C-alpha cells in the first residue's frame, strides 16, 4: 500500500472471495478447449460440461450418441469417429471425445472393452470395468474413475484414416491423466497404478512412465530433453519431501550444489560454477552446452527448412568443429536418412556462429526429422491446426496452417494464420499475413486485443542501433535476434511500436524499452560493465 493515501483505510473496500471451483472450471477448459464452464455447478455436473460442443458421427454406430446426461441403453458394440467434440454415453461408462478422436467398443461381460487408436477422450466409469486399448499394446484399466486418454500420433493426417485401416505404428505416445479413482496402465509387460492427480506417458513398446521425445518443429532439442530428465528426477525428490513433510519427519536438506539444483536455478551461485563450466557430453573443449544450444538455436529454423525441402524420417548426426572465434570450420554428417537432407543440414551448420571461446570445440548434434506421411494434404493440415487452436497450442497451430498454405493457399487459411500470429503476439508474422488477407478490419481486433497495434501491422519498419560495453547478445521482445552488439544502420529492423531490447552478457540480462517509429532509427548505447 502506498503511503500517499495512508489517511484512508482503503482495505475497507473488500473484494469478495473467488468462486468455489474456479480451478476445476479453468482446468476443464484448458484441457478440453470448451467454452466457459459454470463455476457454481456441482462437481459432477461440471465434469459433464466439458467439451460438449457439436455432434457428428462418422461410423457404424451413429445411434450411440445421446443427449447430455441421457441413458437410453447404448448398443453393445459400435464405433465412432468424432468430427467435432462430442459426448458418448455407453451406460456403464461415458466419454467426451475431442475432435479427431476415434473409438470402437464392445462388451465382455461386465467389462466395456474400448479401442482408442487415436485422438483424445475424457472417460468416466462407474462400478464397471473399463478397458481401453490405446494401440501398440498400451492398455488402460479403470474402475470407478474419471480419466483422460490422449493418443498422440506421428502422422498429421491420421485423423482421416478409418479405424480399421489405422496402422499401429502411427501411435507416437499415449498420455493418461487420472482425475478420480484408480487406474492401471500397462505396456511392454509392465503395469503401473496411476493415482488421482497423476499423469503418465507411455511410448509403445516401452514400460509406462517413459516420457516421449520432445519434438520442436520436427527438430529435437537435446538441451530441453536433458532438462526434462532432470526435472523428472526433481519430481521424485519433491514427492519424497512432501511425503516426509506429511509424515512429520524432518526432510533432508537439499544440497545447494547438487547439479539438479543448479540446473533449476540457472547455475546461480558460486558453487554451481563447476557444472556451468563443465565440458559438454558432445566432446567440446571450450564450448559449453549453453553455447552449443544457443548457436544451434539460431540456425534451427533453417535446419527445419531442410526437412521441408527434403522430407525424410530419421536422424541426421552432424559433427561440428568450431573455431575460437565462434565460426564453424567444419560440419560433417555421420548419419542421415537421405544424402540430400544431410547435405542441407551440413550446409546450414557450416554457417552457424557460436560464442567466442578460448579454444573452440567439437561436438556432435543430432537432429530428428519426421516426414509428413503421404502427399501434401492441405485440408488435413488445416483440420489438425484447428484442433491445436482448440487446445491453445497456437505455435503448433500456426506451423500447421503455414504448411497448409504451402500446400494450397486459400484466403481462409491466410486469415487463420493471421489470427494465430496475433494469438502468439508475433508482430512480424501478423504483419506478413495482414498484408495477405482481404478483410483485415474484421480480424484486426484480435491482434489489438493481443497488444499488436494497427500501426505495427501497417506501418513501415523502423530501425534500432545498439552499442554496448562489453559486447552483448541482443534479444528483442524475448526472441534471440542472432545479432551481437554493435548493431548499426538498418541491420535490425523492428515494427513500429514498443519493444523490449535485452542485452545478454554472460548470465546477466539488461532489458530496456524502446519505441520504434516508421522509417526512423533509434540508437541506444549502454555501459553494462
Amino acid at each position, binding site marked *: 500500500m502506498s503511503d500517499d493515501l495512508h489517511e484512508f483505510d482503503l482495505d475497507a473496500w473488500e473484494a469478495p472471495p473467488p468462486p468455489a471451483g474456479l480451478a476445476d472450471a479453468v482446468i476443464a477448459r484448458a484441457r478440453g478447449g470448451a467454452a466457459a464452464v459454470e463455476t457454481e455447478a456441482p462437481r459432477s455436473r461440471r465434469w459433464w460440461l466439458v467439451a460438449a460442443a457439436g455432434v457428428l458421427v462418422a461410423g457404424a454406430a451413429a445411434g450411440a450418441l445421446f443427449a447430455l446426461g441421457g441413458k437410453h441403453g447404448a448398443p453393445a458394440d459400435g464405433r465412432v469417429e468424432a468430427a467435432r467434440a462430442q459426448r458418448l454415453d455407453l451406460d456403464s461408462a461415458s466419454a467426451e471425445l475431442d475432435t479427431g478422436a476415434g473409438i470402437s467398443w464392445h462388451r465382455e461381460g461386465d467389462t466395456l472393452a474400448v479401442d482408442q487408436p487415436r485422438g483424445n477422450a475424457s472417460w468416466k466409469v462407474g462400478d464397471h470395468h473399463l478397458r481401453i486399448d490405446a494401440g501398440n499394446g498400451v492398455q488402460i484399466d479403470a474402475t470407478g474413475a474419471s480419466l483422460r486418454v490422449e493418443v498422440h500420433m506421428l502422422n498429421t493426417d491420421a485423423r482421416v484414416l478409418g479405424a480399421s485401416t489405422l496402422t499401429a505404428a502411427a501411435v507416437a505416445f499415449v498420455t493418461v491423466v487420472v482425475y478420480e479413482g484408480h487406474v492401471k496402465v500397462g505396456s511392454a509387460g509392465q503395469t503401473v497404478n496411476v493415482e488421482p492427480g497423476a499423469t503418465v506417458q507411455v511410448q509403445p513398446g516401452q514400460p509406462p512412465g517413459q516420457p516421449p521425445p520432445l519434438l520442436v518443429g520436427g527438430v529435437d532439442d537435446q538441451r530441453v530433453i536433458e532438462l526434462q530428465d532432470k526435472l523428472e528426477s526433481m519430481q521424485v525428490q519433491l514427492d519424497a519431501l512432501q511425503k516426509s513433510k506429511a509424515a512429520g519427519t524432518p526432510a533432508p536438506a537439499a544440497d545447494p550444489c547438487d547439479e539438479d539444483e543448479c540446473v*533449476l536455478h540457472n547455475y546461480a551461485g558460486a558453487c554451481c560454477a563447476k557444472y556451468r563450466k563443465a565440458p559438454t557430453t558432445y566432446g567440446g573443449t571450450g564450448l559449453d552446452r549453453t553455447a552449443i544450444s544457443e548457436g544451434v538455436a539460431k540456425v534451427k529454423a533453417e535446419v527445419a527448412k531442410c526437412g521441408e525441402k527434403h522430407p525424410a524420417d530419421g536422424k541426421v548426426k552432424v559433427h561440428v568443429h568450431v573455431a575460437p572465434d565462434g565460426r564453424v570450420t567444419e560440419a560433417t554428417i555421420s548419419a542421415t536418412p537421405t544424402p540430400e537432407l544431410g547435405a542441407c543440414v551440413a550446409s546450414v551448420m557450416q554457417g552457424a556462429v557460436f560464442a567466442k571461446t578460448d579454444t573452440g570445440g567439437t561436438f556432435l548434434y543430432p537432429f530428428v526429422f519426421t516426414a509428413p506421411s503421404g502427399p501434401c494434404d492441405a485440408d488435413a493440415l488445416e483440420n489438425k491446426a484447428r484442433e491445436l487452436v482448440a487446445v491453445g497450442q497456437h505455435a503448433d497451430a500456426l506451423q500447421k496452417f503455414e504448411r497448409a498454405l504451402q500446400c494450397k493457399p486459400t484466403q481462409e487459411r491466410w486469415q487463420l494464420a493471421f489470427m494465430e500470429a496475433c494469438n502468439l503476439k508475433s508482430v512480424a508474422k501478423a504483419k506478413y499475413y495482414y498484408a495477405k488477407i482481404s478483410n483485415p478490419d474484421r480480424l484486426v481486433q484480435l491482434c489489438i486485443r493481443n497488444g499488436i497495434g494497427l500501426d505495427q501491422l501497417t506501418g513501415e519498419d523502423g530501425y534500432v542501433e545498439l552499442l554496448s560495453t562489453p559486447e552483448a547478445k541482443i534479444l528483442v521482445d524475448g526472441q534471440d535476434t542472432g545479432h551481437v552488439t554493435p548493431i548499426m544502420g538498418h541491420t535490425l529492423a523492428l515494427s513500429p511500436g514498443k519493444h523490449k531490447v535485452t542485452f545478454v552478457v554472460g548470465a546477466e540480462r539488461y532489458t530496456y524499452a524502446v519505441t520504434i517509429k516508421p522509417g526512423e532509427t533509434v540508437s541506444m548505447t549502454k555501459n553494462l560493465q
Partner: protein
Amino acid sequence: MAAAAEQRPVEPPLDELTLRRAQKGDERAWRDLIARYERPVHSLIWRLLAGRSRHRVEDLAQETFVRVLRALPRFDPAGPASLSTWILTIATRMTLNELRRPEHAELVQEPPARERTDASTERARLGAKIAEAVAALPDAQRAVLVLREYHDLEYAEIAEVLELDVGTVKSRLSRAREELRARLGDQR
C-alpha cells in the same frame, strides 16, 4: 492506510519447481498456481470493474487463468516480469478490454456494498464510499490506482502492465489520488 498495508500478508511467489511443472502441463501444479493467484486476480478484476456484474468478474477470472495456463509454456521466469506481474497483466488487459466494449454500459450494476453487508458497521460504510469513489474514476486512472494501492505494484511494473511510460503512471496515480481525496475528504 499504512497500518493496513503493513498487516497485509505478503504471499510468497510460486516456487520454481511448481512453476516448471505447471509449464509442462502438470495438473497438480496448475491447481497450486491457481490457488496461489486466484484471490489477487479475482479481486483485481472485481475492483477494475468497480462492483459491476459479479458474473462477469467470474467469467473474466476464469478466462484469465485459461489464458495463463495456455501461455504458461512460453512464460520466461528469467524475463523482465515476475509470474505474479505477468498474471496480473493478463487479468488487467482482459478487464480493460471488457470495459471498452460498448455493451459494457449495459452491465448490471450490483447493489452497493453497504446493502450487502452489515450496514451498521462503520467500516462497511467506508468501504461503500471508497467503492463509489473508485468507480467514479476513469478506467485508466482506476487501473493505475488499483494496481498500486491494492496490489503493491511498483511504478515500473504498472507501466509494464498498462504499456505506459512511468511518468504517465505517476501522473495518473496522482490525479486518481487527488480525486479520491476530494470524494473521501470526510472519511478519514
